[in-house]
């Protein structure tokens, strides 16, 4: 085994150990009956539930729905938010109009709009997606705005001196230069997307993992509930990790010193 591989495996093991310790603690607590199995199903019971759900494909279907909702919300947020943030940074008029609107709605937790959307659209999936879109818009617009604003003017001037027309300037200079900030906003928006999707599914109980969690909790099938919770939490983690990988590749040109923690 090469030294590098050894180090990577060792590093991974070192990072996993605290989690394994917690899992062991969990198992110990249930086995020793320190906690009422009503409140904390054993690791085994949860795994059983997992297996069951996987067999029936339930877990995959509902997870898929949740992912679709969160994904659609995120993508829509990007498609609307990036141009909006860019326009606001480049046009005083746009900034003057949208800025106060954004500042005003900033303090409202967008998940609070879910009941309102239910009033408007009923319990269809559109409610969930709409709530997600509105939630992802905010960080994306804000980070895009700051990213575009922060593009050093020497980049713009150099490009203009080389004869870059305005549309090309936006596409080839401003957006790439703002990309690190935009991707940070996307990462935050991804986290929000999961949160709001789950929240909507729990409140509206139409479909998705949130619905599963809520229904299992309501009916007392706690090991199933835990299984569903762990599923979505792990999925969100993996999604975030994948986004980080993608970001690292897209931004491979970035000077390490400029990267944020």
């Amino acid at each position, binding site marked *: 085994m090469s030294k590098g591989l050894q180090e990577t495996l060792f590093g991974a093991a070192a990072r996993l150990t605290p989690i394994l310790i917690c899992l062991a603690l969990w198992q110990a607590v249930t086995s020793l009956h320190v906690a009422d199995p009503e409140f904390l199903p054993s690791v085994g019971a949860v795994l059983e539930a997992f297996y069951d759900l996987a067999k029936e494909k339930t877990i995959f279907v509902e997870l898929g729905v949740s992912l679709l909702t969160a994904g659609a919300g995120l993508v829509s947020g990007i498609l609307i938010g990036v141009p909006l943030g860019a326009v606001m940074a480049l046009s005083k008029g746009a900034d003057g109009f949208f800025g106060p609107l954004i500042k005003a709605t900033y303090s409202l937790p967008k998940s609070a709009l879910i009941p309102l959307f239910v009033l408007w659209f009923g319990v269809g999936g559109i409610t969930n997606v709409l709530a997600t879109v509105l939630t992802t818009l905010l960080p994306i617009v804000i980070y895009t705005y700051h990213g575009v604003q922060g593009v050093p003017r020497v980049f713009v*001037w150099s490009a203009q*001196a*080389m004869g870059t027309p305005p549309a*090309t300037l936006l596409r080839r200079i401003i957006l790439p*230069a703002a*990309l690190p900030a935009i991707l940070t906003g996307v990462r935050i928006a991804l986290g929000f997307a999961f949160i709001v999707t789950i929240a909507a599914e729990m409140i509206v109980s139409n479909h998705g993992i949130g619905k599963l969690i809520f229904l299992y909790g309501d009916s007392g099938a706690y090991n199933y509930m835990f299984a569903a919770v762990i599923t979505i939490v792990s999925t969100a983690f993996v999604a975030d990790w994948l986004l980080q990988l993608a970001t690292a590749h897209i931004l491979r*040109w970035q000077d390490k010193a400029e990267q944020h923690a």
Partner: protein
Amino acid sequence: MQGVDSCKIVIEGLSKRFDDVLAVENIDLTITAGDFVSIVGPSGCGKSTLLYMLGGFISPTAGRLLADGKTIVKPGIDRGIVFQDYALFPWLTVEQNIAYGLQMKKSSRDEIKETVARYISVIGLGGFEKRYPRELSGGMRQRVALARTFAYGPDILLLDEPFGALDSQTREIMQDELLRLWRTTNKTIVMVTHDVGEAVYLSTKVCVMSKRPGRIIETYTIALQHTESREAVVLSPQYTDVRNKVWLSVRRQVLAAAG
């Protein structure tokens, strides 16, 4: 005496005010094609402002600027610029950076490939084509920045303290490279620099700017022969003589600004 129309760059009565600060006052300057003009002066005298107005990035408050007889209103492909921090696009590789101006000019793919390859070898960065700027040293980045601007062939080159961030040895090497590029391409260069010695070494004309608000108070025509080695030129009495005169001029302005 050459007529105004045959001058590459004409500056008349140029002034620039930022809010309540007068940066530059009543500048008159003509630059002939093929000239290498350096502008020196104390910090904050407005020399970069003057350069940016030549580039069309800032508009004057009064007076006018002409390039090839046409008024300068905005940046254009006839005037290339190299900034002190090179402003290489960090998300593009070396060869993509150099190719950029040519792409804006809509040159053919083959022409771009050929020109880029030529300049890469001219600046001696063969093997680094696919590297990103973050992987290059200061001197290398500087070379790419110069190559990028020379490659798409603007007649006029504006340099804003291009060697300011380099150590003195790299700086000397780059100065000679710049000289070589200038001589083989016959561009008109306007350079802003802090370094009086550099200005005298490279230029055909050196303009000294006063402290703020900047005016051109003295102009020196340099007639150094660069056929000899750098050592011979730098150690020659002609060079030393002019350099001392210019330095003293600038020094007086520096003291006046501080006093």
